[in-house]
């Protein structure tokens, strides 16, 4: 079963998006803050296929989690679920993929499967 680390400081977003992902047969590990995500990534035996992260967490930036992901779980792909359509996120290139919040879930799912396929074929960021 594929494991997703879902990092979002909105309780509603974690609950609902997490439920949709679980219905797709994915194991979802929620993190409600930058600090909690860092703990999950640093835990012994941490293993994730995808890290889905919001950019503006109350205690840090999603983009600042990326180096830790690369170090702790290098095979994982990092997907930004962004609530911002502004210049600051549009040009942020540290993520493997970016999808705006509010995009249809089927689009999010398709992008996630694309990343998983890329991960399995050993492909890097295009």
């Amino acid at each position, binding site marked *: 079963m594929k494991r997703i680390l879902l990092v979002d400081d909105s309780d*509603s977003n974690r609950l609902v998006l997490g439920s949709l992902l679980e219905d797709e047969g994915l194991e979802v590990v929620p993190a409600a803050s930058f600090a909690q995500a860092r703990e999950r990534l640093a835990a012994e035996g941490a293993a994730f296929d995808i890290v889905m992260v919001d950019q503006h967490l109350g205690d840090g*930036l999603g983009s600042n989690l990326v180096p830790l992901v690369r170090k702790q779980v290098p095979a994982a792909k990092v997907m930004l679920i962004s*609530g911002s*359509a502004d210049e*600051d996120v549009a040009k942020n290139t540290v993520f493997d993929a970016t999808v705006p919040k509010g995009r249809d879930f089927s689009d999010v799912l398709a992008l996630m499967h694309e990343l998983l396929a890329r991960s399995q074929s050993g492909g890097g960021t295009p």
Partner: protein
Amino acid sequence: MDGRDPLDGVERVAFAEEVSSAMRHAVRNKLAAARNAATYIQRRLSKTEAWQSDARIATFHGLIESELDAAGGLLDPKDALAHVFTRHPERVRALRCIREAVEHARVGAAAADGVRVEAPDDAEVIVDPRELALAVRYLVENAVEATNGHGPVYVSGSRDGDRFVIEVADGGPGIEESRREEAMRAFFTTKPGHAGVGLAIARRIARRYDGAFALGTSPSGGLVARIELPTAAVQP
């Protein structure tokens, strides 16, 4: 200065942009949760008897989705402030904007003496000159404040290939590297009485014109803020 601030109008709009951007972000988050919840309900219930026997359930579900989409569309930042401010990008000498920023920096006469413009190069860039002057003015004001008004503050302009680089450096305490990204976010401030929008506005303006904005450490250990913009192509 004659008492009139020529950058006042563009500053008000830049501030409004930061406020509306923060609001958009918050509202978009809420809409996303509601939209995903609607999707979950549809996926779970669409094959049930209740869903199929009462057409209004599907209709109302569709209505929720379309209304959320429409609400999301209202958040599109394009043209949101067009009725109060029209941007006029033009070919302009970067040094002109630097000088205007320094001239109109709200730092007091004594501190202004400590602001040194060192621009060995000049280049044309394509920007709305009011916006670039505003961005640099924020950096100058921040730098002066970081030195408690004593300066010196160095404002420089230089060419770097096909880019023009404006740097504002101070000898203040600086910002440690791990906190710089945070410091560039709107409404982040450690200074009482400040809104914390200057760096965010400078970054937004730099990026708007295909440039970049970064913070670093100045030669004296303080902060250096750097705006990098593409130079305008040479006209035949």
